[in-house]
């Protein structure tokens, strides 16, 4: 490996540089080969996908697996809609509740600010499964079990504390002077927040919302326990549940469903990738 500030053209073909590119090539292969395998398999027939000597490229590429998803006895379209809706609602709810809290924790120095801030962070670190049983009973008593609302409540347990801390780091970066004029004019805090601060941290809000969305999308344990009707299930849980039945040997269909499950997350991820680094390096963030 050559030194960092050196012009790249200086030692283009040195052994160190060749080793560097070999290593990068290996890293790219390690990262992308499984994803390629998923895509390639999703275009194979059921028979080809389970062949003893796998084919690198689908012999007779077919979109039947994708078409099949929409047409099976399983409501895949409903799974997709359920997941998108519950994750989106969670992201919006968390961000709406967390924005004023993040603003207050960033700006105020009321006696409890530190304690309140760190206890919200501590909540974030709780093992989800610990609150699983009581949360289940809570939803049971509130008649929210087996409903999208119950799912949103579950996702909020980890999404909200995360959102507060991530957003706080974005508010911290807004110089307090910007609010001064409005303060002098006597506007109340919530109006300053809405009209001055929120427009400035909009990228941060979007990034935070995307993170909450991604984490909810990744969650398996809440839909698996809280949702009992198949039609109301989310995609990740449906993959697990249907694998015992429909996809037992149909890896082509499985990988098509997996690709569909990955796509929205991938899009969300790359949409916010740039401001993500800042949100993450602010240190306070729990996530991914």
């Amino acid at each position, binding site marked *: 490996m050559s030194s960092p500030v050196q012009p790249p053209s200086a030692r283009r073909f040195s052994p160190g540089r060749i080793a560097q590119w070999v290593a990068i090539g290996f890293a790219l292969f390690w*990262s992308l080969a499984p994803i390629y395998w998923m895509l390639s398999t999703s275009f194979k027939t059921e028979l080809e996908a389970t062949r003893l000597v796998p084919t690198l490229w689908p012999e007779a590429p077919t979109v039947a697996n994708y078409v099949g998803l929409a047409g099976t006895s399983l409501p895949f379209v409903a799974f997709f809609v359920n997941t998108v809706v519950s994750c989106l609602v969670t992201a919006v709810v968390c961000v709406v509740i967390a924005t004023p809290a993040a603003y*207050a924790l960033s700006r105020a120095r009321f006696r409890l600010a530190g304690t309140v801030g760190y206890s919200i962070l501590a909540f974030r670190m*709780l093992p989800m*499964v610990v609150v699983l049983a009581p949360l289940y009973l809570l939803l049971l008593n509130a008649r929210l079990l087996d409903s999208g609302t119950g799912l949103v409540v579950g996702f909020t347990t980890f999404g909200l504390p995360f959102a507060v801390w991530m957003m706080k780091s974005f508010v911290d970066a807004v110089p307090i002077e910007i609010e001064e004029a409005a303060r002098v004019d006597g506007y109340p805090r919530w109006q300053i927040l809405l009209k001055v601060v929120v427009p400035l941290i909009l990228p941060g809000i979007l990034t935070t919302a995307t993170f909450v969305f991604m984490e909810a999308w990744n969650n398996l344990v809440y839909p698996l326990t809280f949702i009992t009707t198949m039609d109301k299930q989310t995609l990740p849980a449906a*993959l697990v549940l249907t694998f015992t039945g429909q996809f037992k040997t149909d890896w082509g269909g499985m*990988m098509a469903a997996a690709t569909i499950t990955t796509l929205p*997350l*991938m899009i969300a991820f790359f949409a916010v990738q740039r401001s993500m680094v800042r949100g993450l390096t602010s240190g306070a963030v729990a996530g991914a």
Partner: protein
Amino acid sequence: MAAQAPAATQARARPRAGREPWLDWMVLPTLVVMAVVVGYPIVYTILLSVEDYNLLDFSPANFIGADNYTKLFSDPIFWQSLRNTAVYTFGSVGISALLGLALALLMENLGGARFRAIRALLLTPWAVPFVVVAFLFRYMYLQNGGVINALLLSSGLASAPVPWLNSASLALPAVMVANIWAMAPFFFLLLSAALSAIPNEVIESARVDRAGTWGMIWHIKLPFLRNPLLISSLLMVISNFNDFAKIWAMTQGGPGYSTSTLVVYVYRLAFENFEFGYASAIGVIWLMMLMVFAWFYMRALRMERR
């Protein structure tokens, strides 16, 4: 980090930004929601942990004191799950951090569009949902027809297909490989950002002192990366303690209990046997262990902020 430091000092230097009712009220919704969805369940967990509560048992639950806790100490599966959790968590996080660090250092001298393109490609595994990671690797690990076994057989590295996920000794490492695949990009991203934040003067003066590549990494760069590395590792330790999706979708904790971590064991107890009381006792013990890590994390965080 650098951008927010001045703002934070300004806020601190301004005494009249002190108590304001509006600011107090703004935290309230968050606190109320947290109290209901997290605070209440925790209290409830502690209460459940001293009862013989079983959801299938219609007789009312009895107070049984510390029985659940004493039962736990003589429960071999609990200890196995604890060991699995430690191996899974520290193994995956340690290896991912090293891989991420190596990649970040490897890519450091590449700039511009080429770097951004390669970085985006290297980050993709992180954007794959956990359940998909699990099924993808499960497919590749297949004993008959899995691509990994096919490659091993055709290259002559193995004479018979390896039963990756069906072997009690190989299953846990196999799940960890999938986990590392998905997690290493996080460390890569974070450490890349931390590397680029090292002031140029520091690097320049080290170069003037004729520091070699390794000396530069060891004496100059690593000290700068210590805090980000510590914080991101602790963060990932906490989130791996909680990892359910990958293990459940790959092995359901099996074969036997060889890949059961505490999450999986608690889930099996609570939602397969409906032993809420016993599951809650394990939850409470676990909560305490996790709080120790959380304490270290917050200490690291406060030091970082200073």
